[in-house]
């Protein structure tokens, strides 16, 4: 029951990903060929809304959240190479398969078997990263 709000948030996210067509290979190819504003519009308006939302809750930072833990701005881990190089590798996969991780989950839910195959691939990629992690430059 404690986790119920996360189920609702996830459901809203998955539902919106499908309705926005961000789960479509066609939409991703169209974006990377700059043939439509649609995907850029989703990303820009999402970032802008999140930014405004963060400013609105700023007075509440360091106060307890609904679950009790103190609220803070999420922090990314430090690093020099990992973010651009990892991002580039993910981008190669995204540009070919047309799916990023959110849409993979949403499309599995919608019954696309090909998304299950991609998901199996992502788990192997994740495992490979975990295995090599201590040898990769940060």
């Amino acid at each position, binding site marked *: 029951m404690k986790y119920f709000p996360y189920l609702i948030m996830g459901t809203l996210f998955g539902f919106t990903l499908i309705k926005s067509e961000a789960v479509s290979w066609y939409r991703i190819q169209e974006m990377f060929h700059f043939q439509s504003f649609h995907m850029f519009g989703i990303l820009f308006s999402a970032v*802008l809304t999140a930014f405004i939302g963060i400013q609105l809750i700023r007075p509440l930072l360091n106060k307890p959240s609904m679950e009790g833990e103190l609220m803070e701005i999420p922090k990314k881990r430090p690093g020099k190479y990992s973010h651009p190089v990892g991002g580039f590798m993910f981008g190669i996969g995204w*540009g070919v398969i047309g799916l990023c991780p959110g849409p993979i989950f949403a499309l599995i*839910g919608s019954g696309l078997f090909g998304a299950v195959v991609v998901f199996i691939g992502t788990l192997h990629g994740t495992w490979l990263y975990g295995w090599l*992690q201590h040898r990769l430059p940060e």
Partner: protein
Amino acid sequence: MEQIIELLQGPWPWYVSGPIIGTLVPLLILIGNRSFGISQNLEHICAITQPKFVHVHFFKYDWKASVWSLVFASGVLLGGFLAGVTYANPEPIKISLEAQQMYASWGLSAVSEMNPNEVFGMSPANIVLLLVGGVFIGFGTRYAGGCTSGHAITGLSTLQPQSLYAVIGIFGGGLIASQFLIPMIMGGLL
């Protein structure tokens, strides 16, 4: 009632979808100081399924602290089912004319469903492509520490330079894949 169903069937324009997704960032902080992002679940699933005799240290952590994230991902599955099956959009998706002509030049049939059968159908060549692509997505998002949700949305909206570098990498990789690799794959491999 009919209007509500039509609304749920969509499609939703970018100025509706984007703000809904963006709102999740402050909401998840308010609920439990959680960082919006989905790809960390790949790590948790590896941690849960790692057999006892395998000793990859990276996956030896207390994944139970991240149950919220796995519940969130289950919600995405449920949302995908509701949006893609229960309230499926009966109309074919509306791609720009320019892109439609490009897909025709790649030899794809006319756009009807959300994703092309030529890429996601279960031929041996497709299965190899989907698996290899998946490996890049999994390895890349874990090395970068986030994907489109965690870096492009959470990271950029909180003005973190690491996320900007990640997003530049993501778009660089995506441009190369979409502009050069996909035409090659469409031309010969599939």
